[in-house]
């Protein structure tokens, strides 16, 4: 288990607003940041939609939480990974995203996941 610091990875695979998983995942990441573990967040499948620019929720009267991803840096959550395949399949590029991320191939994501101690799925 490797001493006091564990590697936590948050795996986000769901689109925002249709379900609450994206928002409640972000809430765990924010609380978890206080525990000084080695944290990374990955966006796969429809999870990449969570960090698309220009979200405006006024018309559905739900809380727009997309700007909170920009605040992750202040919480020292700096390892944000995006599945290159998932992004491309959706016709999106890094320019469409609200935060700086590292694009990763499936093989690279496999390696990253294998390094973790704890994987949280949303």
């Amino acid at each position, binding site marked *: 288990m490797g001493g006091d610091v564990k590697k936590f990875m948050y795996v986000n695979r769901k*689109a*925002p*607003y*249709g379900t609450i998983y994206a928002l409640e995942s972000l809430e765990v990441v924010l609380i978890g940041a206080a525990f000084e573990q080695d944290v990374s967040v990955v966006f796969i499948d429809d999870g990449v939609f969570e960090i*698309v620019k220009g*979200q*405006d929720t006024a*018309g559905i009267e739900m809380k727009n939480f997309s700007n909170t991803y920009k605040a992750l840096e202040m919480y020292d959550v700096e390892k944000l990974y995006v599945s290159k395949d998932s992004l491309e399949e959706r*016709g999106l590029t890094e320019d469409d995203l609200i935060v700086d991320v590292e694009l990763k191939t499936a093989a690279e994501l496999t390696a990253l996941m294998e390094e973790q101690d704890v994987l949280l799925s949303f």
Partner: protein
Amino acid sequence: MLHTVNKSPFEKNSLDTCLAHAKEGSAILLIEDGVYGALNGSKMTAQIQQAMEKFTLYALGPDLKARGIADKVIDGVKVIDYAGFVDLACENDKVQAWL
């Protein structure tokens, strides 16, 4: 008949099954995560464009805007608001929800 689809076509088979069972000329309205089906330039786009030869495709504007994709919609998809959704439900004789 009005068909509604609220699931992302990247994640679930709801839109596929809707397209396989809707009658030619039907209105299909994408709502909630279903609006990702209206995204231009995706791996689904060609299939949607083909479906648009047979059906009239609508997408709910408030859901597109919430998801930041209102300016990335496939040409020809009609964007409507909740009032437009109500109008569609009236104009069509019944509503089928593909969940």
